[in-house]
């Protein structure tokens, strides 16, 4: 069967089971948009290519299936660089297809030419510049294989216009050998010796902590984690990327560690004699000053990526494995710590002294941002998916929304990409249409990517967006207040400019506003009743609110700053 390269590309995506592509056409990718008309694949037409990338990320994080985005060459390609970098930092499986100028024009500074494979070399797991139509099926199959196996990540396929316009004999690789990836071996046998050494370390531990990272979600190991944690009785912390991997309601869950982590989670890591790191990478936002991090702890480091071992912290036992297989091996070997009675007594006393708290809201407002999040969470149905942008609102959402199941918390962790929330929510809703999707956003973040609400309305994707509008770039404001003598430099945004309600309405959404407690309750109820169009709520929150606890940048986690109402309590 003779096909054009463009037809082969769409047919290859169909072969991979792709149901949705997020994208925006342009000159170099034009040929591919023609056969798309005849395909079963749903295309979501975005308003900016960055939106397509973050939507694909939200889709991938909500479903566990790779997200797919397609854009044109030049600025189309560079506009999607931020989502690619974001997906690279957070190991999100993504396949990004970019149009490229015709092969004969490459290197001539042709119209809308850019070296996107060069630009994304350091922020993709791999990328391809496809040289002939005949190679398209192989490139697509290999891209999906690379994106989804081993440590997942973004893969980019750059397709010149003459390649998509020329003819090929249809074929599709049926075996991994045909992918032509001689250097890629994601499957590794479990190192039995390392398992045994880990089990021996666990047996001598009296103060262990399960340090659960995003790799636990990526490897779909939540069930194994629950079984292992319950059998051994160990305390669990879940990082920002792992929220939802272990139920927040579980008695063994201490919450999120890190710069804005729960006091008990941070301190348990500090005082532990053993950390079992499960798909986590000792990120600086978790460890604080690395030389002072968990100084008395031995480390069992489980990761699918061996380059994570000893990168930041020496591993006493390094076990290259996906999290689920490692936990099953630990269970099979009967791994069990020594008595943890004293450890749990200590942990419980921290929990009593330093719970997560915020100041009581006043009836007349301004609203407490933490209270707004807790109120939305309280009225949300179980299984609601939450996305966020980056900043104070993100930390509060991670702190005050209780996550009970995997893939219900979607945020930008490693890259810290402002504007991630709205498009990620759209992608998540496309992937899980039966779920309610809330985006907890900040006013600064919202302004970066809000145009995608036009996409949401026109494509019938009814997400709910809560803007915690404190009129500031709040996290930067917090740092300037605490560390720059309250010298506020370029952080004021205004609560009224833009008018978020009018803006929402102009984009075809329902726009609501709440300035006091009564209005807050009413608008949340109203938003929950709307299931056909996107809703945007402008919550007027207190600008002076800060995220606590906090570990200052570069400080030791021992020097955690607790909420002002808790300061001075005996530790």
């Amino acid at each position, binding site marked *: 069967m003779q096909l054009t390269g463009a037809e082969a590309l769409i047919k290859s995506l169909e072969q991979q089971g792709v149901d949705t592509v997020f994208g925006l056409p342009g000159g170099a990718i034009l040929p591919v948009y023609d056969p798309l008309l005849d395909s079963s694949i749903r295309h979501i037409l975005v308003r900016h290519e960055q939106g397509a990338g973050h939507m694909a990320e939200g889709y991938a994080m909500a479903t566990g299936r790779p997200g797919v985005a397609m854009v044109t060459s030049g600025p189309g390609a560079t506009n999607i660089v931020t989502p690619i970098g974001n997906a690279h930092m957070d190991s999100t499986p993504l396949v990004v297809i970019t149009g490229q100028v015709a092969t004969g024009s490459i290197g001539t500074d042709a119209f809308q030419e850019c070296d996107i*494979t*060069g630009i994304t*070399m*350091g922020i993709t*797991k*791999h990328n391809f*510049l496809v040289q002939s139509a005949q190679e398209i099926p192989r490139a697509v199959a290999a891209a999906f294989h*690379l994106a989804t196996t081993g440590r997942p990540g973004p893969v980019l396929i750059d397709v010149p216009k003459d390649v998509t316009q020329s003819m090929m004999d249809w074929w599709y690789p049926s075996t991994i050998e045909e992918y032509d*990836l*001689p*250097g*890629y071996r994601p499957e590794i046998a479990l190192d039995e010796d390392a398992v045994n050494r880990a089990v021996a370390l666990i047996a001598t531990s009296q103060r262990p902590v399960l340090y659960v990272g995003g790799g636990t979600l990526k490897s779909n190991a939540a069930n194994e984690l629950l079984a292992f944690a319950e059998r051994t009785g160990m305390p669990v912390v879940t990082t920002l990327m792992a929220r939802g991997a272990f139920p927040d309601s579980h008695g063994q869950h201490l919450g999120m560690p890190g710069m804005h982590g729960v006091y008990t989670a941070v301190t348990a890591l500090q005082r532990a004699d053993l950390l079992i790191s499960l798909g986590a990478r000792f990120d600086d936002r978790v460890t604080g000053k690395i030389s002072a991090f968990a100084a008395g702890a031995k480390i069992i480091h489980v990761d699918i*990526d*061996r*380059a994570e*071992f*000893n*990168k930041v912290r020496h591993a006493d036992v390094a076990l290259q494995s996906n999290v689920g297989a490692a936990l099953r091996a630990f269970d099979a070997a009967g791994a069990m710590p020594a008595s943890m009675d004293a450890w749990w007594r200590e942990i419980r006393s921290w929990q009593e002294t330093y719970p997560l708290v915020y100041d009581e809201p006043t009836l007349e407002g301004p609203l407490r941002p933490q209270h707004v999040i807790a109120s939305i969470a309280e009225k949300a149905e179980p299984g609601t998916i939450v996305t966020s942008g980056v900043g104070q609102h993100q930390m509060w959402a991670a702190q005050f929304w209780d996550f009970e199941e995997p893939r219900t918390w979607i945020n930008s962790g490693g890259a810290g990409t402002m504007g991630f929330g709205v498009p990620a929510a759209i992608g998540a809703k496309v992937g899980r249409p039966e779920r309610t999707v809330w985006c907890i956003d900040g006013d600064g973040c919202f302004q970066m990517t809000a145009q995608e609400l036009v996409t949401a309305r026109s494509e019938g994707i009814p997400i709910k967006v809560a803007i915690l509008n404190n009129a500031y770039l709040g996290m930067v404001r917090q740092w300037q207040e605490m560390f720059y003598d309250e010298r506020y430099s370029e952080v004021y945004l205004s609560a009224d400019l833009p008018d978020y309600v009018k803006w929402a309405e102009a984009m075809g959404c329902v726009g609501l506003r709440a300035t006091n407690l009564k209005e807050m309750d009413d608008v949340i109820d109203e938003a929950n009743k709307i299931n056909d169009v996107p809703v945007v709520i402008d919550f007027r929150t207190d600008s002076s609110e800060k995220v606590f606890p906090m570990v200052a940048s570069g400080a030791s986690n021992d020097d955690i700053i607790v909420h002002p109402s808790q300061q001075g309590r005996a530790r």
Partner: protein
Amino acid sequence: MSPEPFLGTTSHTPVRHHILSVLVENKAGVLARIAGLFARRGFNIYSLAVAPAESHARFSRVTIVVDAESAPLEQIVGQLDKLVNVVAITDLAPVDAVERELLLATIQTNTANRTSLLDTLANAGAAIVDVDPGAVTVMLAGTPASCDQLERALESFSDVELHRTGRVALPRLGEAAPQ
């Protein structure tokens, strides 16, 4: 592991160096991927030599001398191994490797320096590969240390243009030296 015995320091031979013999797919941009990885992770490359590998047109062999002080070797190898086009990495400690390098130098000659130049070349085992009335081009294929020695010896001559290829290496035959 014991460091290679060597004389003095030059920019060509770091104190703690390792040789990575890296088999890669012979595809466009592979060298850029390797160089880019080293640059963005802050790993230092001392020398780099690339050539088609054995009889396979499909693969190339890249010999990289890395500074094991700039980053732990485990980290360099682990990150390099993640490059999809990297097929295999052999890490050669200097003591376990046979290393060779090629040095070419053009030296301006005159009646005053000719005798001492010829002595220097004879001592180093270097060969003259090109001559004209005012200059000679010489070549030395030898260990990196012998190339270092010749380079230092040539410093006493003015007007020297010198090129080195960077080393290639293969595992030493027989039992590996004790680590």
